[in-house]
């Protein structure tokens, strides 16, 4: 059941041909962070289910989230959340037709990166502040 005929046509160039640009890297990161957040939702759901289950289950989840590997995963989840959110805002701006010029899309790409790093550090400063 071949869906397309096996004609000998030239292939279009793929990733390894192009020099990376900020728009291209942000596009790839948007998809990767989106996929990561899909599974990261489990972190929020597990916390709520453990809380409803009782103090023992909640203590277990808190201990896992408070450990070094747990904190690293949560840190990554926080960054993915903010990066995907700002990437989404970028796409919503583009949906209006604005900032499609070279200058606009390049600055939006960098703003996504700088903004997500800043917001992630802000949240973790709040978490770690006593």
């Amino acid at each position: 059941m071949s869906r397309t005929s096996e004609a000998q046509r030239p292939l279009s160039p793929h990733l390894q041909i192009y020099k990376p640009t900020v728009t291209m890297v942000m596009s790839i990161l948007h998809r990767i962070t989106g996929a990561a957040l899909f599974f990261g939702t489990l972190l929020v759901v597990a916390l709520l289910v453990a809380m409803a289950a009782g103090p023992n289950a909640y203590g277990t989840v808190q201990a896992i989230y408070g450990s070094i590997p747990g904190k690293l995963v949560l840190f990554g989840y926080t960054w993915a959340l903010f990066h995907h959110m700002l990437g989404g805002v970028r796409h919503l701006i583009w949906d209006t037709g604005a900032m499609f010029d070279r200058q606009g899309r390049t600055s939006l790409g960098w703003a996504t990166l700088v903004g997500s790093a800043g917001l992630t550090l802000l949240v973790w400063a709040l978490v770690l502040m006593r």
Partner: protein
Amino acid sequence: MHSEKKSIRTPIARVRGLGAAKSGTGHFWLQRLTAVSNIPLTLAMVVIVVMLAKLDYAGARALVANPLVGILLIAFLVSALVHMRLGMQIIIEDYVHEEGMKIVLILLNTFFAVLMGLASIYAILRIGFGG
């Protein structure tokens, strides 16, 4: 499906009823709608979780039992789960070309999102109603 035989059917007759007319933007639109609702709701979720991190068990339960907090969390979960289900479907359709595997993964995608939603919303309601 697309035979090489000559047919008297017009191109429009061949595609009519195969979908993607008028309702074709449904996926796109719901993706944008939930993208917009995700922004304030995710920020609310992050603030709530940061507050939870500083509370003991009783305090954490009391916070989630607050109606505003509970409703914001449920709204976040519904909005985020719908959005992530649509996004993952696109990823599956982009990379999985084997028809059977694609359908299985698209089914599992929906089952996962629904399961996450039911488990977490049940938990929030149970905490809210003091069960």
